[in-house]
C-alpha cells in the first residue's frame, strides 16, 4: 500500500476507546437513584467497571447517598449541581455533565460505563445524544397509572422505559396490567421493564438491556 492508498481499518481493538455513557432520567421520587443502587451490584458482578454522575438542583444529595452506600468506590461518583432546570444540563447545554464524564474517563482508564443520573424532572425531560449514547426514563406506579397516557416526551423517546414500584400497585389503586399495556401502546412496542428496585425485581433485565445496547459483553 503506497502513501496515497486508503488506510485499512486498524487492527481490531479489544476494547472501546472510552466508556459508554447512558442516562437515567425521570420525575422526582420515581426511583432513579434506587435503580442505580440496584444496578451497580449486578453490573459489577458481570465485570462491568462503572462510574456515576449525579445531578441535583443545588446540592449533591444523590451523590452523597451513593458514596455512603458502600456499593461503589466514592471516587467513582461525581456530582453536578444543575442550579436550574434539570433538563437544561442534560439536553440544551450538557457541558457540565460532559466534563464530569470526561473526568471519570480520565480518572479510570478501564471504565466500561458512565451512568448519568438526571435531577428529578417532569415528563418532558429528555437527554441529548451528544451527552449519552442511550437512555432510560423511570416512572413509577405510585406517581399515577395515567402517566403513560400523558405521552410525555421522556416516556415516548427514551430507549428503555422503566416502570418502577410495581409492588405498590395494589396499594395505590393502579391497574398495573392496564398501565403497562398503555405504556407499550404509546411507545409503539419499544422496550419497557417493570421493576421494583427495592426488591430487586427485574433489575437483571435492565442490566441486560444496557449490555445489549452499549456494552461489549453481557
Amino acid at each position, binding site marked *: 500500500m503506497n502513501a*496515497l*492508498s*486508503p*488506510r*485499512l*481499518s*486498524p487492527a*481490531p*481493538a*479489544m476494547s*472501546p*476507546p*472510552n466508556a*459508554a*455513557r447512558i442516562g437515567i432520567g425521570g420525575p422526582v421520587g420515581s426511583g432513579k437513584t434506587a435503580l442505580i443502587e440496584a444496578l451497580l451490584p449486578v453490573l459489577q458482578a458481570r465485570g462491568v467497571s462503572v462510574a456515576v454522575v449525579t445531578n441535583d438542583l443545588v446540592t449533591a444529595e444523590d451523590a452523597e447517598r451513593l458514596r455512603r452506600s458502600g456499593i461503589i468506590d466514592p471516587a467513582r461518583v461525581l456530582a453536578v449541581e444543575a442550579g436550574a432546570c434539570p433538563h437544561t444540563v442534560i*439536553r440544551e447545554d450538557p457541558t457540565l455533565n*460532559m466534563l464530569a464524564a*470526561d473526568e471519570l474517563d480520565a480518572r479510570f482508564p478501564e471504565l466500561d460505563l458512565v451512568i448519568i443520573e438526571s435531577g428529578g424532572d417532569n415528563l*418532558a425531560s*429528555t437527554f441529548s*445524544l*451528544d451527552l449519552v*449514547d*442511550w437512555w432510560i426514563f423511570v416512572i413509577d406506579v405510585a406517581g399515577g397509572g395515567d402517566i403513560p397516557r400523558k*405521552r410525555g*416526551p421522556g416516556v*415516548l*423517546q427514551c430507549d428503555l422505559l422503566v416502570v418502577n414500584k410495581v409492588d405498590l400497585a395494589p396499594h395505590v389503586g393502579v391497574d398495573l396490567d392496564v398501565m*403497562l399495556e398503555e405504556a407499550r401502546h404509546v411507545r*409503539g412496542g419499544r*422496550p*419497557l*421493564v*417493570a421493576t421494583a428496585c427495592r426488591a430487586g425485581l427485574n433489575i437483571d*433485565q435492565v442490566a*441486560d*438491556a444496557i449490555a*445489549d*445496547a*452499549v456494552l*461489549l*459483553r*453481557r
Partner: protein
Amino acid sequence: MTLQPNPPLEHAVLVSSIVGSRLDHDLGHRLHHMEHDGMVETVRIETRDMARRRLRVVTDRGTACLVALPRSEQLFDGAVLLLEPGRAIVVRALEQAWLRLRPASLPDALALGYAAGNLHWKVRFAGGDIEIALEGPPAAYLDRVRELIAEGRVTPVDAADEA
C-alpha cells in the same frame, strides 16, 4: 416481559474509529471496485441515531457491529466503518422524515412556533410553513397541536400539496 436481545456479542465487529468517507477520492475508488466484487456491506441508520457514539447495528448481510466511537468522532452518511482486504462496511443514513404544518395567519404562526419551541421539536422553515423532524409517528406530533388544527388555525400539508 422479555426484551429482544441483539445478535451474540462474540460475533460482533467492534468499530472503534471511522476509517474515512466514501466521498474521499482514493477510498471511494477502492470501494467502487470492492462493490463490483460484492465486498461492501451497508449499515442503514435512522437519522435520529446518527448522533450516538455507541450503538449496535447489523449490516445488510447480517454482520453484527458494535459501534463505539471516541466522543470526538460522529457518524455520517458515507462513513466507512471497516475496510479489510475482502470486506468493507459503509453507513447509509436513512432519509429524515418531516411533518409540514401551515399556519393560517401570522398570529397562528406565532402560536405554532411557541408550541414547537415549548415541545423542543427540531424544525426547519419552508416559506410560510414549518417542518418538524419526525422522531416518532406523525400522530404523536399532530396530537400536541390538535386544538390549533381543529380550529383551522394550522393545517398539515402533504408533500403533494406543498405548492
